[in-house]
């Protein structure tokens, strides 16, 4: 963008690109919420029930079995509403959340913008006040939404049936592994005890398969960055139960031989599960079924624009071919002459992978998002995500010390795993240190899953949500930080300077003496340090 000399906005740009931000994060010495508790303090005082109600209800505690009654009240914090509000607002100011910054630095996570109107739909009483134990006849609306959205997932994947039960990406991968296990058990294939995956597929593919007793065989990328097909041929055998693979992997490189992979595994009687975590560049363009896959999963919180809740309500949709329908987790949403119902009669199914039938409000958000876009719009999402990513790659690769290993000169799908190997060699600065310095300018930056297969990795994924100005801001900041690495490495090495938490000591996470995942453990292990 070029601004004329008289334009009020011109001081915010140099050479048509946004300037570096002057940023400083708020710092609050805010304690853990449990510490705020004051005995007797209340957020809300519930009025006493009228006598007639009390008479009718009698003592509700008497209706609970004595084994299920607490002896002591739960140790919840006792805090007034305004203090709770202040607490969480302060914490939010110490974060670099997705709604606060250009969040393209958290590659692989598909941090697209989630339209707030979809949240409003989910928060409306029509949705929020439903209860999973209500009679089916009273929840026909949300069942219809789920049934309709299943049709959309079937169209996008080419599969025959979908279940919304899994509560997130890894839960759906877990369900995939369970279906593979159940299928082979049903066929009497007791010798099939090996699952093949790749080093750059999500680590959950290996981890979930292992939970079912499978042995895991992992393939490395070949010199072009594709999963090594020769290694697959060396790994595959009569013992192969299945292939669990992402495509494109987190490098953003699409494996053009994916169908051959599937064929090789099918030849020995294995099933192929497509981990569609990276589907954002493929919507309406390629389909799991067309490459021969037997099952797949989508993450509604990534590709379908429902919020990433870091463990909160989420849905991983599992979709399968008709041969595998009997093994799906239940209940499934069915339609009988216009009446929707939940089908739990799945004697061969893997059972439940979560309570009830999944997070219905998340399905509603995803459904609203897709219906707003339409089929053409959905394809455009993929096209813009790919266009954005390749624009960004072109700009990042102009920065001294950067590279995009493998597949030289080729375009990527929706994300790129970069390497700062050269910058590190020249300056001694590590990729993590660049990330901490980026935070000084108000931008988030992520490296890669561990262990690092590429030296000094970084992963960016702009999705379709960010504009060219957003991407230019990110790249300009990245360029400035790398220039600092060359000219003033000390300032990068000692970053962040503008954030409330300086550096997090990761060794605490590995030390049972210091980690604390409950308030009680925190009090026990850190009483000395908090008093001192």
């Amino acid at each position: 963008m070029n601004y004329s000399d008289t334009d009020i906005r011109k001081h915010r740009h140099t050479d048509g690109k946004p300037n570096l931000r002057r940023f400083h994060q708020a710092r609050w010495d805010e304690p853990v919420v449990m510490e705020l508790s004051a005995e007797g303090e209340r957020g809300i005082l519930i009025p006493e029930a009228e006598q007639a109600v009390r008479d009718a209800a009698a003592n509700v505690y008497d209706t609970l079995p004595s084994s299920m009654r607490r002896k002591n009240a739960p140790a919840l914090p006792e805090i007034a509403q305004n203090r709770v509000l202040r607490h969480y607002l302060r914490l939010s100011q110490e974060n670099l959340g997705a709604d606060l910054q250009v969040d393209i630095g958290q590659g692989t996570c598909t941090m697209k913008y989630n339209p707030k109107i979809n949240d409003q739909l989910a928060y409306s009483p029509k949705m929020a006040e439903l209860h999973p134990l209500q009679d089916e006849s009273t929840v026909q609306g949300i069942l219809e939404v789920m049934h309709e959205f299943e049709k959309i997932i079937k169209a996008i994947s080419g599969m025959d049936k979908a279940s919304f039960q899994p509560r997130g990406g890894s839960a759906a991968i877990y369900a995939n592994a369970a279906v593979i296990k159940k299928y082979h058990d049903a066929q009497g294939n007791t010798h099939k005890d090996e699952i093949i995956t790749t080093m750059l597929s999500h680590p959950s593919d290996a981890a979930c398969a292992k939970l079912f007793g499978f042995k895991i065989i992992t393939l490395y990328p070949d010199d072009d960055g594709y999963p090594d097909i020769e290694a697959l041929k060396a790994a595959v055998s009569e013992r192969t139960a299945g292939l669990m693979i992402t495509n494109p992997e987190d490098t953003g490189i699409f494996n053009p031989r994916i169908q051959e992979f599937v064929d090789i595994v099918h030849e020995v009687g294995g099933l192929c599960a497509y981990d569609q975590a990276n589907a954002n560049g493929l919507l309406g363009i390629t389909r799991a079924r067309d490459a021969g896959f037997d099952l797949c999963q989508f993450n509604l919180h990534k590709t379908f624009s429902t919020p990433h809740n870091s463990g909160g309500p989420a849905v991983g949709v599992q979709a399968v071919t008709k041969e595998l329908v009997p093994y799906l987790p239940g209940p499934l949403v069915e339609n009988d002459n216009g009446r929707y119902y939940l089908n739990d009669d799945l004697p061969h199914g893997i059972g439940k992978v979560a309570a009830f039938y999944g997070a219905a409000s998340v399905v509603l958000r995803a459904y609203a998002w897709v219906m707003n876009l339409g089929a053409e719009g959905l394809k455009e999402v993929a096209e813009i995500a790919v266009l954005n990513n390749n624009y960004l790659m072109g700009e990042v690769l102009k920065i001294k010390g950067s590279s995009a290993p493998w597949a030289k000169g080729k375009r990527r799908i929706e994300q790129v795993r970069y390497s700062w190997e050269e910058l590190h060699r020249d300056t001694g600065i590590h990729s993590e240190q660049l990330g901490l310095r980026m935070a000084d300018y108000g931008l988030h930056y992520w490296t890669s899953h561990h262990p690092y297969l590429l030296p000094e990795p970084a992963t960016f994924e702009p999705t379709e949500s960010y504009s060219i100005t957003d991407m230019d801001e990110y790249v300009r900041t990245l360029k400035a930080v790398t220039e600092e690495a060359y000219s003033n490495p000390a300032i990068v090495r000692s970053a962040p300077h503008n954030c409330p938490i300086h550096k997090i000591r990761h060794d605490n996470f590995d030390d049972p003496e210091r980690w604390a995942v409950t308030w009680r453990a925190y009090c026990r292990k850190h009483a000395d340090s908090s008093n001192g």
Partner: protein
Amino acid sequence: MAKAIAKPMTIGLIINPVAGLGGRVGLKGSDGIDIQRRARELGGQGRGVERTISTLNSLSTASDVEILTCQGTMGEDAVKTAGLNANVVFPISPYRQPTPSDTMAAARWMVEQGVSLIVFAGGDGTARNLLDAVGDQVPVLGIPAGVKVQSAVFAISPKAAGELLSRFIQGSIRCQSSEVMDLDEEELRQQRVSARLYGYLQTPVDRCLTQGAKTRSNTSDHASALAIAEEMAGAMCPDTLYLIGPGMTTAALKEKLRIDGSLIGVDLVCNGRLIAKDVSEREILSAIDAHRGPVRLLITCIGGQGFLLGRGNPQVSPEVLNRIGFGRITVLATTSKLTALHGKPLLVDTGSSHVDRMLSGYIPVITGYRERQVYKVSDSLL
């Protein structure tokens, strides 16, 4: 980057002719006169001359270069065998065994003569001599010939050294500081294999042709090594003779089997019992002859370098490998060791190109309990 100069570039060449002497006979090194005598008695042979000839034969440009070297086995012999001219020669007494002070004196003389690069054949001991004598005054390139080759100053193979040297002569490669490491004997006495950093030499570097320094195992690696040991111990078959190679990963297996094995040698194990500890090539061969069941080799790779065979385990010679059979090798390595190779293949440099070729391809590596990774093995012959 080498400067463009009008007169031909001069390169220094120093061979440690006794390098590698102690290897196959199981002595873990060739430093010191007593060790060298024992190695000879056991039938050991130095590899410096033979490895250097291989490097010189693979030079693509030798015309525009002037070679300064040492008399006899410390350089001149190899240069002549390769059909090249040694232009100036540093005198070495032919009446005694060459010593580290000869190496250092020759290196200092070469610096005075204004060489652009010193090529040496040897191991970590020789690299340390170069470090003491020249420091960062001129770049240095190592031809791997010793038993301990953990420093980053070495090419991955003699032929790779030839390629690096050619590119240095053409001025198409840059030099950077590379670690000079040697086995830390203090740590070894504490039952840990660890390389100690002695300093840095300037070395022409190419990711695929230079080997990188051995990396130290860390604590979380130990947890992974225990998981590997659990898996491997469960997969061991009765009446099978297992050759278990050196390293921290295999040490965890020995710990699991409650065997008091050697940390940097090869041990023989059968039916969960230690048959022989820290054996030489000859002892391995006679044990294979005497054993009436299958034989399997369990080895790990060197962290940071990826060498499976040809570094640190010369007792497992080409003949031993031929006798075991190529399908009977199991590799144990932690995922972090493999990923730290950043896509470089596992390497074999046994000294026999036939054996190296047979070992090339894809090999399953046990990386944890019920976990394997299929990894590429390459003969290091470019």
